[in-house]
């Protein structure tokens, strides 16, 4: 109505303008807070940056050479790998088990579902603090074990049990999310398929392996991507439970990055570690996305 040249403002043109206006905030945000910082982090990684002396000088690949020679790197990568692998395996299998249990037609399932899901909505740091309290040497868990005549380890001060603790605390916190996604997928499997399989004499386990798993494989793939990428971002739990210790046994990549950049103020080297994190996340996502074609049964 306000357009001076009605012939120029066709419906298609109007739509195009509307489209750009609609996406403008998101696109501007991605450019400002994701793409430019990604460029900057790469630029920083090529520099030696001394915050105290306020020097910023180009050093080429020196930070990357330092990365390869970093004596802490193998331990950091190993801790990240153990944490992610342990978390994903435990989380996915427990989520699937709980979803299968909740899928049974029994009374009171909604109550169980609500309770299994409840840690998801408990503040992450609050949840971690309670577990930290429970896992103290004289804390609740060892207290209960002592009542059974078992002497528990000092969970957070022993390298192996510290890693196990960090994984388990995170699994119980978030497994409810994957659980409800699996439950929705299970409920989407047509019941006739099970009937047919039963007529053909397939047992429950066989039905699960041959019908359920293939049909929910798209959900399994998607949740595994989200869970793996999420596992690489773990920070608060480590900071609250172990501060990366004992020794460096629970210092995962993001925690190491935080220490280098924000505790020791090595911004150049911290940026190099950021690039490493980016490469790992991108590679894992890409590989899983490619695997989709091979292992996922169907997609719509």
């Amino acid at each position, binding site marked *: 109505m306000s357009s001076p040249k009605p012939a120029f403002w066709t419906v298609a043109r109007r*739509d195009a303008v509307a489209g750009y206006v609609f996406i403008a905030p998101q696109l501007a945000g991605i450019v400002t807070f994701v793409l*430019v910082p990604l460029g900057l982090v790469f630029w920083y990684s090529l520099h030696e940056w001394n915050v105290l002396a306020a020097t910023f000088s180009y050093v080429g690949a020196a930070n990357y050479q330092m990365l390869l020679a970093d004596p802490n790197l193998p331990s950091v990568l190993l801790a990240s790998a153990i944490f992610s692998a342990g978390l994903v395996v435990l989380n996915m299998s427990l989520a699937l088990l709980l979803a299968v249990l909740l899928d049974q037609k029994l009374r009171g399932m909604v109550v169980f579902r609500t309770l299994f899901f409840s840690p998801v909505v408990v503040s*992450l740091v609050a949840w971690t603090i309670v577990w930290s309290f429970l896992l103290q040497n004289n*804390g609740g868990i060892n207290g209960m074990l002592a009542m059974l005549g078992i002497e528990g380890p000092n969970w957070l001060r022993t390298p192996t049990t510290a890693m196990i603790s960090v994984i388990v605390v995170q699994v119980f916190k978030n497994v409810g999310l994957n659980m409800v996604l699996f439950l929705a997928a299970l409920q989407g499997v047509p019941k006739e398929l099970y009937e047919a399989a039963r007529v053909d004499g397939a047992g429950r386990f066989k039905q699960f392996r041959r019908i359920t798993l293939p049909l929910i494989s798209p959900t399994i793939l998607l949740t595994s991507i989200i869970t793996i990428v999420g596992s690489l971002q773990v920070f608060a739990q480590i900071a609250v439970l172990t501060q990366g210790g004992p020794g460096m046994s629970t210092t995962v990549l993001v925690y190491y990055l935080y220490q280098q950049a*924000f505790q020791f103020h090595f911004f150049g080297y911290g940026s190099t570690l950021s690039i490493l994190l980016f490469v790992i*996340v991108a590679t894992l996502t890409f590989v899983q996305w490619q695997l989709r074609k091979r292992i996922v049964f169907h997609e719509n």
Partner: protein
Amino acid sequence: MKTDLSPRMTVALYGLMCVLLIPFVFPTWWMVTSSVKPISDIFAFPPDLWPRRFDFSTYAQVFELQPFARQYWNSAYIAAVVTAGTMAVSSMAGYAFARIRFPFSNAIFMVVLLGLLIPSEVTIVPLFQMFLKWGMINTHWPLILVPIFGAPSVFATFVMRQFFIALPVELEEAARVDGLGRFKIFWTIALPLARPALGAVAIFTFLHSWNLYLEPIVFLSSTQMFTLPQALTQFTDAYGGAMWNIQLAAATMTAIPVLLVFIVAQKQFVEGLAHTGLKG
């Protein structure tokens, strides 16, 4: 799967689920009950499932040791603004990517999706430098702007796009024939229909903001500005030892309100999350 479970099987299933529930429910119980124990009872042996003595002064001490009300407000208002902002940005972008034809829309969508590959941990160093340059360190701006417009909102945009793609287009077509503009159609027709997806976006955006930890400790430095997750870790004595009962009182006050909202609205919560854009 089955309705024909034997009674013995039923009992076994209930038993198994009750055992599995322990690590999900017990920590919350232990947090609440320990928060009202005097410090001398906190590590009592054998452990008390119900406090043998009550000490409610821990709750008052939370507010004496930290500007806890202020920190509570910080977390609450940041999460509210981020949730509202994300809903606006992601529903508009999601709608455009799903419904409006414009040049390069697919290419732009791929660029936006890059945000999913670049967690904010990767860009935290340059973001810190940018906000330092803009004079926004020790303000709440980084905790508001980055989630609304940056990487965390991409997932919301993706969910909204998936929802709008699945929504039948006929209603909007009729309105277009009547000459309604795009924004009118979006606002009066598409958005009201998108309530389930918006609900899911609101829930996970709120929880994401409420749980944020790395960003606050990087960007904020004064206790007045702290958010709850950061404040919870500050209840330590002069030697750095944790003041457990006070810390647990603060944790209880942080966790319980959201938990109550969840229990009241659990159906919308769980089903909203389960049925939105995430299914295959």
